[in-house]
């Protein structure tokens, strides 16, 4: 009975749809099924042929009517079975910039399950509604082989910087006959870090005062070899000591002395010309990317957070992360 009440509570359009916890396994109690428009058309056809069979007292008419009716029941069970038992098998998403599309990769865990076909995943819309057949046909879907796992991608657009959680995911299928829609929800513990959109009209602030103009066209920070240090994630491959690696002495990075003079510290105040905080952060984000691309050594100074100068992918991520989460809990 509870399951039934539960079912009605989660019917599309019901106010109680933001249920508390959705398990990450589609067990029988959490898979909902209902005849869609094609299924209701089928039911209508069923009614008409039944009336015809009764009226003409036609034995084979009865026989095929009941075949259709049983097929309806069996189609319901097969559609239901196509979803029941599917598990969420983890997922991930690489950080992106605001304005881009976040591509979550979710793993569908079907170990011990039958083959499943045409299972569609999409972020659950805020307002519950039915998809028309044409929208449904346009949804991307995956097939999950028996006793195996499959990855599926869910794209959502990221408008603002900060953490973007993948809220509810609706999993649904109409396979095999398209007469019923079975659906359920997951709330996977997934979020993606959205960096500010790199944009802004301002030029990169000049390097520190002690900047040496003689450096001229030379590659900054690569002039004087100053020894080795251990490789850290994000170091430029150009600085790896390949010869040392070839001698099986481990992964080391060559250090150069000149970089210190080309340091630039990016401050929020440098972008004070821009009207609001988000635009300033966007500007800083753009500067970080520019500085990294130019091979400068750069640091970040935000109110309450400062990152000393450095370079490399890891350093860049650290700066972007600080920008993304600035002012956010």
């Amino acid at each position, binding site marked *: 009975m509870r399951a039934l009440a539960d079912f009605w509570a989660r019917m599309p359009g019901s106010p109680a749809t933001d249920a508390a916890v959705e398990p990450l396994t589609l067990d029988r109690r959490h898979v909902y099924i209902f005849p869609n*428009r*094609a299924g209701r*058309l*089928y039911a209508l*056809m069923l009614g*008409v*042929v039944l*009336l*015809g*069979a*009764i*009226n*003409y*007292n*036609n*034995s*084979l*008419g*009865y*026989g*095929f*009517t*009941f*075949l*259709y*009716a*049983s*097929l309806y*029941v*069996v*189609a319901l*069970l*097969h559609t*239901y*079975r196509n979803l*029941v038992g599917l598990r969420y*098998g*983890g997922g991930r998403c690489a950080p992106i910039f605001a304005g881009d599309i976040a591509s979550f990769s979710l793993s569908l865990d079907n*170990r*011990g*399950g*039958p083959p499943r*076909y*045409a299972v569609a995943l999409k972020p659950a819309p805020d307002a519950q509604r039915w998809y*028309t*057949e*044409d929208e*449904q*046909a346009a949804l991307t*879907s*995956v*097939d999950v082989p*028996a*006793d195996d796992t499959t990855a599926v991608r869910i794209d959502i657009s990221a408008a603002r910087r900060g953490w973007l959680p993948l809220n509810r995911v609706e999993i649904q299928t*109409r*396979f*095999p*006959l*398209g*007469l019923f829609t079975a659906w359920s929800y997951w709330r996977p513990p997934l979020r993606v870090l959205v960096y500010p959109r790199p944009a802004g009209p301002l030029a990169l602030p000049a390097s520190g005062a002690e900047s040496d103009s003689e450096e001229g066209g030379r590659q900054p920070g690569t002039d004087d070899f100053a020894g080795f240090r251990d490789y850290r994630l994000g170091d430029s491959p150009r600085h790896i000591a390949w010869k040392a690696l070839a001698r099986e002495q481990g992964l080391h990075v060559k250090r150069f002395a000149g970089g210190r003079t080309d340091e630039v510290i990016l401050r929020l105040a440098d972008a004070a010309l821009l009207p609001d905080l988000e635009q300033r952060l966007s500007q800083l984000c753009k500067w970080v990317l520019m500085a990294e691309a130019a091979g400068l050594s750069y640091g970040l100074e935000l109110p309450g957070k400062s990152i000393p100068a450095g370079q490399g992918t890891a350093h860049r991520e650290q700066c972007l992360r600080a920008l993304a989460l600035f002012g956010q809990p």
Partner: protein
Amino acid sequence: MKPPRASPSSPALTLERIAWLVAALLVIILPHALRQPPWVITVFLALAGWRILGFTGRLPLPDAQHPPLALLKQALGLLIFVVVYLGNDRTLGRDAGVSLLIMLLGLKVLEMQRVREYYLVAMLGYFLVITHFFYSQTLLLACYLLGGVMLLTASLIGFQDARRALPALGRLSLASRLMANALPLMVLMFFLFPRAAGPLWSLPKDAHAGLSGLSEEMSPGLISQLGLNDNPAFRVEFKGPAPAPSELYWRGPVLARSNGQTWSRGVTGDLAPPPIQGHGARYEYTITLEPHNQRWLFVLEQPSALPAGSRLTRDLRVLVPNPVVQRLRYTAQSYLRSVVTDFNPREIAEALELPRGFHPRAIELARQWRGQSQAPIDVVRRALEYFRSEPFYYTLTPPLLQGDSVDEFLFDTRRGFCEHYAAAFTILMRAAGIPARVVTGYQGGEYNAIGGYLIVRQRDAHAWSEVWLGDRGWVRVDPTAAVAPNRIERGIDQVLPEPILDMPFELHNVAVRQVLKQFHDVWDTVNNRWNQWVLGYNARRQTELMSQFGFEPNLGNLALTFVIATSALAFCTALWLLRRQTRPDPARAAYDRFCAKLARRGVRRARHEGPQDYARRAAVARPRQAGSILRISDLYMQARYAGDQRALRNLQQAVRSFRA
């Protein structure tokens, strides 16, 4: 003015999906091609073909991008309506409805643009399957249409199979699996659904057209070839031994009036029945009558106990209140030797009437015999002797009789079948002052040893005479027997020309014929079961069945049984379908046991962790078991991903002896 909104077809409607649907519809429509005018199917083919060709890009489709074509399409729809309406005498009955449905389906295939419309066409396809059963309900047709339903279902599966993971065969096999899952529930519903006795609303006039059988008129000479076919008229199961073939006269319509050309029912026939005195052996039998859209039932001459709900007439026909449009099963009893002596002057007067101005030569011959004879029975013998000694021939393809049918047959052509002999004999008797009438029905039948019943076919149709012999009452005389005794004693097969037996002419070999006969018998037995259990299953049989199981067969009980039983079976089907489908891979199962053993020691495998990573971590955590941990994960990867059977056995053994 607003430009017409271009609404391109949904990208989901691919060539493959439409081709599947059209193929399924074609299979479903095909049997209608035998009954519908050829242009109906042609129109469907043309319209569906147009849509298919549209995919090649060479043929523009009648969509919003081609307004003139769209207009043409709408005109075509209207034209189809008008032509069907006028072509069917301004009625929309069964035939017209089917014509319309087929052609409009073609039109819908041509114009569909939305997924919803695809489904609409498929649903109409399911509906179209049912329309066949208004024409024919044979076992073969049912099997064929099951195939059609499977194909239609497979095209729906193909539609849902968005990534085309299933090949064509896979779709068909899934469709047949769905239907196999549905079968038990269907059978249960078939037997338990409360059957209504009568129609809910009036049926169109042509609902039962095309049922064949005897008619209530007979015009020997006007037809040169009897419409002989192998269709069964009825099947008989005798309780106890059956009478000899020559005694099997199945009485049908009695014809007492002649207008010189055509014989028809007399006016005294419907009076109250006479008493019948039966003698000798009494036979009880059950007849399964094929629907013939007439009110009479066939019984063995002469009936002593009538089927339930029927009545006997003065001329010993058995009538039911309504035409038989469903296969009917009834039980009757008959005495082969029975006497009807009840005298009714009106009946006798009618049996002496001669059509005015016809048959002068016959009348003269009969008067001559009458003058030379003592008693009426002598005249009868004389007439039979005449047929026997003069060169009369029994043939199923007699010449057409242009003038006076009786005179010409008796004196000129002398070739004919039972109707000619019965008609001529009856006229001769009446002319000689002996009351006589024609009786039509069937004679003989073929014994089916496998099913243990007698099958009487349309080609066993026969006509004979009855004469009134005073104190002996009505006596059957079969003049055909005088000419072709084989016809009566051994059945119609003995006199039929070869082709009618449905056998290639090379098959003179007796053994081959035996085998063929055996095959025919098996096939007919299957059909008989089909008729009785599937087609003949009606409200009455349902009541009988319910009573056998000890239920009071009222509507409430029926409905309750239906709901409970079908729900229970649907529930069982659900349990069966939702049971754990695949056993986990044995290598996986062993590995899971290994992981469980480690987990008990606190080394739990994370979801994202592959076997190698996990082994490395576990080996560090439990350094004493490091060797076996690494070995087990190696074996697991070999067994699971390389399919190595020996590795699997080693893995299972290693896991068994593993102590974490």
